[in-house]
């Protein structure tokens, strides 16, 4: 008995020395609350291929994007398989806050100016707080500024305007795979005939698979519900390409059946068909400039 008591005290005394001190110190540093881990870089830039992704430029950052589509591949050697034509959009986007971005662009297609707002409503997160997907809302206005097609009749400025509203719902599955669902509505103030709808609904989406840290394969599809555009024959838009990130730039090189470079253009005005060879080679070049440094960086 006496020995036992001695043994117990002896053990109590040396016990702290038996526990690996560094492990217990490390456990001391484990956060009681898990930090919230927001899904970042669901896509490399603000477009999946030709349409909007959930990404915005970071707050205080200016994104400059040059979009170029060549002519159709099926136009033959005379036309150098489309190299002789081009449609260009030069655009800028700026992160006003962490969640809100404003942007505008100039399109060579009918000298169209477009302006938009994009707001991150919900952000996918894991860890201390969990939410399964990200949601952004997008709204734009496009105004074409070429001469009236029918100058003889009474024309209104508002006839030049169209709008597009989109909900961008995306999820990043692990670090390599991301998927987005994009319901869209285009409103055209003026349509060619009474049978054409002013409001055109589409359901689309896209995704990317990273094949390395800097290269991904992307695809995007938008289905236009039938019976909405009657006076001309339009088709669903499908685009596929690669994202190549080089540090300062993101290059997106793709094939698409849409010549249009803004939402109204490729959602409600895609006249090309993949199986007929109406395929356009195109690219986006994105560059980001830091205008305002984050406050947290400096003391």
């Amino acid at each position: 008995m006496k020995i036992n008591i001695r043994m117990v005290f002896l053990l109590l005394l040396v016990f702290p020395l038996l526990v690996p001190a560094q492990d217990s110190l490390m456990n001391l540093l484990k956060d009681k609350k898990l930090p919230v881990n927001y899904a970042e870089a669901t896509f490399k830039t603000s477009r999946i291929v030709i349409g909007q992704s959930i990404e915005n430029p970071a707050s205080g950052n200016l994104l400059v994007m040059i979009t170029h589509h060549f002519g159709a591949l099926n136009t033959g050697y005379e036309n150098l398989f489309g190299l002789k034509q081009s449609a260009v959009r030069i655009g800028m986007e700026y992160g006003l806050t962490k969640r809100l971005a404003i942007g505008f662009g100039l399109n060579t297609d009918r000298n169209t100016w477009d302006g938009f707002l994009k707001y991150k409503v919900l952000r996918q997160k894991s860890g201390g707080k969990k939410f399964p997907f990200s949601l952004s809302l997008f709204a734009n206005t496009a105004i074409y500024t070429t001469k009236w097609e029918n100058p003889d009749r009474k024309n209104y400025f508002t006839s030049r305007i169209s709008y597009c509203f989109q909900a961008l719902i995306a999820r990043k599955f692990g670090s390599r795979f991301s998927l987005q669902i994009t319901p869209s509505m285009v409103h055209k103030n003026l349509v060619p005939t009474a049978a054409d709808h002013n409001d055109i609904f589409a359901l689309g989406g896209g995704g990317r698979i990273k094949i390395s840290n800097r290269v991904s394969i992307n695809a995007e599809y938008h289905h236009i519900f039938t019976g909405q555009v009657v006076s001309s024959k339009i088709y669903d838009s499908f685009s596929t390409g690669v994202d190549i990130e080089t540090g300062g730039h993101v290059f997106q090189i793709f094939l698409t059946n849409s010549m249009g470079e803004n939402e109204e253009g490729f959602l409600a005005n895609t006249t090309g068909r993949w199986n007929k060879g109406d395929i356009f080679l195109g690219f986006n070049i994105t560059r980001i400039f830091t205008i305002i440094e984050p406050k947290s960086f400096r003391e």
Partner: protein
Amino acid sequence: MNKYWIILMITAGSFTSGYTQTYVSKNGMIRFYSEASLEKIEAVNRQVNTALMSTTGDFVFRVLIKSFNFEKAMMQEHFNENYLESDKYPEATFVGKITNIRDINFTKEGSYPADVEGKLTIHGQTQPIKQNGTLEIKNDAVTAKAKFSILLADYRISIPNTVVNNISKSIEITVEVMMSKLNK
């Protein structure tokens, strides 16, 4: 006899535990810096967790990679996505010792040189590391400071050929953590 044993043990036990002091910080700072011909890279993390045991010199660090802030948001994204792969390796740790802890008097204010030795884990790679720093004791707080360089290649952080001239192969790391007594 028995009684004396018990008294001796209790005295010795309480003496040991009273003498041992753990110092901790949850908002230490680590800054890193590298300069190459084209690009200056600088980032700061002000949420560094550390703990130091004054008797044994055991010293540990725990750092969330996503808590590093950069001047350019795009650099921060690339740092997390392409270089440190923070989804796969969310934290960096250091587990080691101040080997000359006997020379540091925690009850006397002053600045003491500290020899630190241990294992640094970044990007899932663990490397032995041995550096010198200082410990400043003031008003019951201990401030640890160190400045050293590591090679990116040691931690298998690869730089693609296209930007190899933009990024320096070694990174200068500055550590400054003010720790206070635990539970006091």
